[in-house]
């Protein structure tokens, strides 16, 4: 190639000349054959390009098909794995949300129980309504406290006296104008509402030597009525503990 050009001072012009010479139409048999071959080539190129554009699986070799099948199978199993993972994640999330709902429900139940216990929630249910009429003013705070204690012993869960909720910290005292509960005075007749098992509580009140006998002995009258559904509507104002702090469950118990 380069050797050819070295000996020729005008290789480019000569090359073009040769091309023109060769392109000159000649009516030889070989030229006609070459033209025929060129037609075939053009036809084949166009056909192959067209064929390739509309290529389907049917034109592929067996090994190619096996390759494609392998790839597809691999892809499919990979997607299957993916689907399984996502399914597991979804299951986890679903069960997580249900256990979350269960936790919320449990917390709500605790809140209700503690609210009734602490007197911060109104309560309703079966119970007894007890009225102590004391025209003589003989009923003292200890007698009322006895009544509360008896009711608690009989399973009362929520108690109010003259619209004052009785809770664990309730205290009874003697004020200037009579009996005081939690610092507010109550005056006869004393109306007690207690939620619990009505039969148990009323029989506890009527027990010989119990509250009823005691109150009647003081010259007061007592009436007890069982109610299938009564409401303890009084609330106890909640004040946070000033000194006591909860011990974290993980902390070691102090001796």
């Amino acid at each position, binding site marked *: 190639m380069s050797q050819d050009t070295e000996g020729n001072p005008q290789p480019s012009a000569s090359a073009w000349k040769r091309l023109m010479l060769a392109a000159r139409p000649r009516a030889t048999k070989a030229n006609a054959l070459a033209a025929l071959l060129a037609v075939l080539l*053009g036809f084949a*190129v166009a056909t192959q390009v067209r*064929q390739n554009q509309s290529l389907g699986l*049917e034109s592929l070799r067996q090994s190619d098909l096996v390759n494609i099948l392998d790839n597809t199978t691999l892809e499919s199993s990979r997607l299957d794995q993916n689907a399984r993972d996502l399914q597991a994640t979804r299951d986890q999330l679903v069960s997580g949300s249900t256990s979350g709902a269960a936790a919320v429900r449990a917390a709500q139940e605790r809140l209700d129980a503690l609210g009734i216990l602490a007197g911060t929630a109104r309560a309703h249910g079966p119970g007894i309504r007890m009225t102590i009429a004391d025209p003589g003013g003989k009923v003292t705070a200890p007698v009322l406290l006895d009544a509360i204690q008896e009711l608690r012993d009989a399973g009362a869960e929520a108690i109010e006296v003259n619209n004052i909720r009785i809770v664990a910290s309730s205290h009874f005292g003697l004020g200037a104008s009579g009996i005081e509960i939690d610092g507010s005075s109550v005056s006869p007749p004393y109306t007690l509402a207690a939620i619990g098992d009505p039969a148990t509580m009323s029989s506890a009140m009527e027990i010989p030597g119990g509250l009823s006998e005691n109150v009647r002995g003081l010259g007061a009258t007592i009436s007890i009525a069982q109610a299938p559904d009564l409401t303890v509507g009084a609330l106890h104002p909640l004040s946070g503990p000033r000194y006591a702090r909860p011990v974290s469950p993980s902390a070691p118990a102090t001796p």
Partner: protein
Amino acid sequence: MIPALGLLVGLAAGLFLHPAVPLALQPYLPIAVIAALDAVFGGFRAVLDGIFNDKVFVVSFLSNVVVAAFIVFLGDQLGVGSQLSTGVVVVLGIRIFSNVASIRRHVFRA
């Protein structure tokens, strides 16, 4: 000039007639086309070298096509059809490149 016209005619016919390649020929047609292209570029180079011969061109064209197709056919029979096709395409590609390089030197002196 006449073969160039023939190429155009063939392209037009292939584009407008929408021929379907027979299933048995499908693996061999692309290889045959590459081989034919190699022969065509070889012919150009021969023209520029001043050693072009019509008969040689026709024979080399036909033998290129037949041999390329035969090699692929043989490969298919032996179970290495796709690898042999690749090999044939690589070899023919190298030949086409070297032919084109030679043509380029003649025509552009570069």
